[in-house]
């Protein structure tokens, strides 16, 4: 894993080192070129001074040169040297300092003036300039015979220049190294300090687990770049918290719904074991009905969880909503009549739609069953069917508008107690989930007369 801090530190240090090196090199090169130019200018002016001393003399050249005047040309270690040739290479004069050594001959100075570095035995590295010129005539007399062209080479020891350049180089390298070391010390601190909010964020995030989902990242005092991150994280946490809560509540609900039938089963069995004579004649029917109740809870829970995860298979075909509704209606007629309900069916229009008849039947059955179960004696249940709309309305005296949002919650019942009639409060949740799987919706409304209307709206066609 690469830590942002070490990557930043490394890259910054590398960049700063490169910049320092480039700056140092530029300063050095500029200084060297400037110093060399100065040196060359001095060399050239020395050469020109010597050149002015040369005169044409009867087909030859006379150099009115005096070592005494031009200091520095006498000793063998220099620092100055010169040599004069005719253009054809015939040697004319040389400084005493040069001794037996030779400077580069006229052939070398084709495009004079020209500067060259070369080693001179006894004097070390020297810089030479070559000058090709016609010496002037003495006292401006007209020339006698052909004028002679000469080549003058003047050299100077460059040890001073080199020392200066070396000192400069050392100075620059030293300064660079010191700066780099200081940067290496400062940069990690600056970066650590700059990344503190990130570290805080990471620490905060590390503390969050399923039990502390209510925690939120503080966004006060955060740098602008981190604000969108914490905002998104907080949103995510809020959503997670809601879904965790729902799951937790759902788990508790499931446990609660299963506890009572299991308690019944257990106490009945225990009593039959401890006191066999108390065993009721209908004990087996009772056991069976508890088992069926448990089974229906499990089946509906599974269907619900599958549908909510989008795993409910939907097989679209031509389906007639009115015909299905009429079938379900007929199947519940005897129960409704036995409960003393007014049980009505109204067909508003006919027509087929593309839908899944199995899911449709399940939705209608749940709606009708719910209405038949919870309508008080003497109440009315009315099923109204059209091509793509189904409405089941029933008298619900106990229900208030505040209950409507809860109707489709899993395990919700108006009265918090079980009714013991096999209804676990899953039917409407299942019906709505199925309705949505069919691209429709299921809504509930309550009119002033206390009639609850469940409306299933499906896409037409």
């Amino acid at each position, binding site marked *: 894993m690469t830590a942002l801090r070490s990557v930043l530190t490394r890259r910054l240090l590398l960049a700063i080192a490169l910049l320092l090196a480039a700056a140092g090199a530029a300063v050095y090169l500029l200084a060297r070129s400037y110093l060399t130019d100065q040196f060359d200018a001095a060399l050239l002016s020395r050469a020109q001074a010597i050149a002015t001393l040369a005169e044409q003399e009867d087909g030859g050249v006379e150099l009115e040169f005096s070592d005494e005047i031009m200091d520095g040309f006498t000793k063998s270690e220099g620092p100055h040297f010169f040599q004069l040739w005719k253009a054809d290479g015939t040697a004319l004069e040389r400084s005493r300092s040069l001794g037996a050594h030779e400077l580069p001959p006229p052939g070398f100075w084709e495009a004079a003036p020209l500067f060259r570095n070369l080693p001179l035995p006894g004097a070390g590295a020297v810089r030479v300039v070559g000058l090709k010129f016609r010496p002037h005539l003495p006292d401006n007399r007209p020339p006698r015979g052909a004028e002679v062209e000469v080549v003058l080479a003047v050299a100077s020891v460059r040890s001073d220049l080199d020392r200066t350049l070396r000192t400069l180089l050392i100075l620059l390298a030293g300064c660079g190294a010191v700066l780099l070391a200081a940067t290496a010390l400062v940069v990690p601190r600056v970066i650590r300090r700059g990344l503190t909010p990130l570290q805080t964020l990471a620490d905060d995030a590390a503390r969050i687990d399923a039990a502390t989902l209510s925690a939120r990242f503080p966004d006060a005092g955060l740098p602008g770049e981190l604000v969108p991150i914490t905002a998104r994280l907080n949103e995510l946490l809020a959503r997670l918290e809601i879904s965790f809560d729902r799951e937790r509540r759902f788990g*508790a609900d499931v*446990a*609660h719904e299963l*506890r*009572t039938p*299991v*308690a*019944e*089963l*257990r*106490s*009945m069995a*225990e*009593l039959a074991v*401890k*006191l066999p004579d*108390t065993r*009721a004649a209908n004990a087996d029917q*009772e056991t069976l009905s*508890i088992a069926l109740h448990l089974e229906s809870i499990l089946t509906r829970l599974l269907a619900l969880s599958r549908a909510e995860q989008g795993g409910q298979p939907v097989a679209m075909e031509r389906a007639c909503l009115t015909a299905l509704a009429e079938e379900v209606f007929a199947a519940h007629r005897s129960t409704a009549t036995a409960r003393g309900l007014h049980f009505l069916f109204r067909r508003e229009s006919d027509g087929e739609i593309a839908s899944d008849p199995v899911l449709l039947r399940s939705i209608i059955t749940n709606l009708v069953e719910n209405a038949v179960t919870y309508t008080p004696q003497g109440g009315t249940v009315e099923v109204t069917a059209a091509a793509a709309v189904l409405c089941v309305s029933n008298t619900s005296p106990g229900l208030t508008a505040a209950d409507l949002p809860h109707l489709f919650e899993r395990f919700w019942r108006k*009265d*918090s*107690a*079980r*009714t*013991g009639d096999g209804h676990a409060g899953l039917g409407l949740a299942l019906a709505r989930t199925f309705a949505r799987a069919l691209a429709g919706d299921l809504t509930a409304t309550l009119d002033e007369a206390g009639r609850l209307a469940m409306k299933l709206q499906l896409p037409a066609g």
Partner: protein
Amino acid sequence: MRLLLVEDSRRLRETAATWLRRNGFAVDVSADGEDGLWQAQNHDYDAIVLDILLPKLDGLALLQRLRAGGNRTHVLLLTALDSIADRVRGLELGADDYLVKPFALEELLARVKSLCRRAYGSKDSRLTCGDLEVDTAARKVYRAGQPVELKPREYALLEYLMRRQGHIVSRTQIEEHIYDGGAELLSNSVDSAICALRQKLGAGPLIRTRRGLGYELAAS
């Protein structure tokens, strides 16, 4: 000992009532909160077994109203809710104990017995009066070390008298605590039960008749 059992699941209500009756309790049953509250307010129960989720009036509300009315009867909450918050809420509202569904009948019995003992200010399951000893846990009676066989109702009567030792107990009080609402009471039911008990316990005037007042159990 007379109990009230308020539970809306018919099967649970019936099995628990049968079990408790067989163990010598007089049990009244109720299927909803309103009826349960009425019964609890109008009878002198030794303990109430109360489900939390009830139609009409939930168990916690029932408990709250009962306590608000000054009723101190010991209450055992039956709950399908298993969260600590629910239990704490029940206990804070004045319940004395709770039992989570599903439960073992034995545990229900043990907890009900414990509440009844506490109703008479004793934690000891052994009651003594002279050479008479009643083990309320095992429901056994000994006279001078010798076991005495009693019918459940006779036992209930004896246990009640033992718990009220030194007090004069009226015939009505005995009826309230020994018989549940469903029992057919004759005017001399209590007298004949006392008579049968005296015979089984043998010599020595343990149970005395206070004319016009009732009965009293005391060591001779």
